[in-house]
């Protein structure tokens, strides 16, 4: 087995790198799962909004001189508000129609956003520097871990856990979960469900933008960055179980690691391994790892 050809330190390094990539997957699939759970919309614009998040951070710096730390909060808010506008103006009228309409609309939206940014900024990408406070790295013995990558794991974990707590442990979260189960009944209790839906979409989109800001210093800020990642993230949501928050987080990290290890054992297959896992999961557990059978 190839596994034994690889010295432990290298193996540990790859494990860690997988976790870092998994962190991006987790934050993105979390947003997708939230939106799917409450709105029943397959949000194909998620990747594009992740890209917009990165661009907003870039533009805040380029035009207004606002640095990384404020952007980490501002960009998700700006993009989240944009998401709220999308939900109110475009998605709301489709709420009673088949899923397919929402999917087509968000897919079109993704193409529009990507096309617009490509028109103005080209594909070669913009630079976004790692903030000074996160420069450098640690020597872990088995690998050199850049400080920024460590921060990516930490920030993603915090956001994922906070979101999970919000949904599982707070009154707002309880109402949201109830609305997922039976929106009409919750409305009969006097809860403003449409508002809840709008907020959820805005929050899911803000999560995508947050991941975008996290990604900006590592990858070039590039109009195509979203379309490269979105298909993988969809697969992860399916593996975790559509609409399952915990499933999205756990499978995000898990599949990041899975992909990372494939890059060592069989690098050529690393961009399809997630889909292979998806196929297997769908055969064995059609509802996904954490999904409830319909």
């Amino acid at each position, binding site marked *: 087995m190839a596994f034994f050809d690889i*010295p432990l*330190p*290298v193996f540990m*390094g*790859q494990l860690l*790198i*997988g976790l*870092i*990539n998994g962190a991006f997957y987790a934050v993105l699939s979390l947003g997708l799962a939230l939106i799917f759970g409450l709105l029943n919309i397959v949000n194909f614009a998620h990747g594009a909004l992740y890209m917009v998040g990165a661009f907003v951070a870039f533009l805040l710096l380029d035009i207004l001189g606002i640095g990384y730390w404020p952007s980490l909060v501002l960009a998700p808010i700006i993009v989240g508000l944009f998401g709220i506008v999308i939900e109110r103006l475009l998605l709301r009228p489709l709420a009673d129609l088949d899923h397919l309409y929402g999917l087509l609309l968000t897919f079109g939206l993704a193409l529009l956003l990507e096309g617009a940014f*490509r028109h103005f900024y*080209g*594909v*070669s*990408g*913009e*630079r976004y520097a*790692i903030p000074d406070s996160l420069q450098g*790295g640690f020597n872990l013995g088995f*690998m*050199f871990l*850049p400080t*920024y*990558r460590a921060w990516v794991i930490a920030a993603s974990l915090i956001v994922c856990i906070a979101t999970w707590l919000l949904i599982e442990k707070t009154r707002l979260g309880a109402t949201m979960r109830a609305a997922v189960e039976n929106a009409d009944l919750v409305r009969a209790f006097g809860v403003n469900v449409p508002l809840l839906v709008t907020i959820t979409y805005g929050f899911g989109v803000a999560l995508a933008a947050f991941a975008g800001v996290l990604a900006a210093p*590592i*990858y*070039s800020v*590039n109009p*195509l*960055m979203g379309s*490269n*990642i979105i298909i993988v993230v969809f697969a992860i949501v399916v593996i975790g179980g559509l609409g399952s928050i915990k499933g999205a987080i756990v499978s995000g990290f898990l599949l990041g690691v899975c992909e*990372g290890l494939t*890059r*060592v054992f069989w*690098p*050529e297959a*690393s*961009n399809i391994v997630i889909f292979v896992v998806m196929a297997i999961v769908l055969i064995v557990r059609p509802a996904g790892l954490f999904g409830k059978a319909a």
Partner: protein
Amino acid sequence: MKLLRTMLLAGAATALASPALAQDGGISDDAVKIGMLLDMSGPYSALDGQGSVVAVQMAIDEMGGEIDGKKIELMTADHQNKADIGSNLARQWSDQNNVDLILGGANSGVGIALQEVTSEKNIAYINNGAASAALTNENCAPETGIHWTYDTDALANGTAVAMVKEGNDSWYFITADYAFGHKLEENAMDAVKANGGTVVGNVRAPFPTQDFSSFLLQAQGSGAKVIGLANAGTDTQNSVKQAQEFGIVQGGQKLASLLLFLTDVEALGLDASQGLTLTTGFYWDQDDMAREWSAKFEEKHGSKPTMVQAGMYSSALNYLKAVKEAGTDEAKAVVAKLKEMPIEDAFSRNGKVRADGLMVHDMFLAQVKTPDESKGNWDFYNIIRTIPGDDAFRKLEDGSCEAAKG
């Protein structure tokens, strides 16, 4: 029976529509039609894409938009880096539009597919941007196909040989996993070994890849003195950027970007790319002629031309000159004429189209400037030396294009 009749009808229709006029010389359907198939929106569109269209239009304008009263028409399409899309478009242009020349852009997979279609359909084909030397070796079509700007052999002979001679003699390759990367890796490995170096390993990264950290870590662990990047475009940018993040250069290993474009350096910034050794077929600041043309290009496109864009201009211009001299746009006649002409313009120094279809011309070994050395926008390279065409490219007799050796 019905099927047979349909096929016969289709055959007859194609025969009627095809430019059978070519045999009696002259320009078919009263127009010289150029079709460009390139990456207009993907990872190679910055170094090629719209800039290449602008460059070819400049060549057409320079010829006055017509040849002996026959209009020059330009069509463009996005091959989306997919060989099947590229070949379908080429067939369509051949069957419906009677295209005379196809200019193929970056992506070797598509480039090789187009070579087959164009030679079957007897269309002149010039590629700028696809790097694979297979175009003038195992996949050569010397009667119709020409490879213009650079190829993987020239890149390897330039960068890899220069670095091995400086004592950087053990290499690990990170390779884009398709036709281009494989060929570049193969050529570079040969060059390293031929000059006394060793190859300690390689890893094939899917194309395109965003996160190279895993591959970089494997390269770091290999202990090789040089990490050779056999990739291009956004793949190169991401790998160079992340190599810096993971402290690879600080750790004492050197990076060799075997194919680096001006637009990559612009996107990376000099901080991240300074000191990289590279081989290029053209640099806008190489001499007066190049500077003058590049300034005109910049006015129209907003950036200095990459070697691919300059090569597109040069190949279109010389093709049109050859059509004028040959008095026909029949593919074989024009390509034969091109092989007689010296190729000398804003792009090419001491250029000639060889029997196997390779446009041999001077290449440059360059190094990316430090931020202090650079005098501003686009002032990115120090030219270390000129590599004469005959040294830069593989010799005809060493190649595998049997049809051209005769």
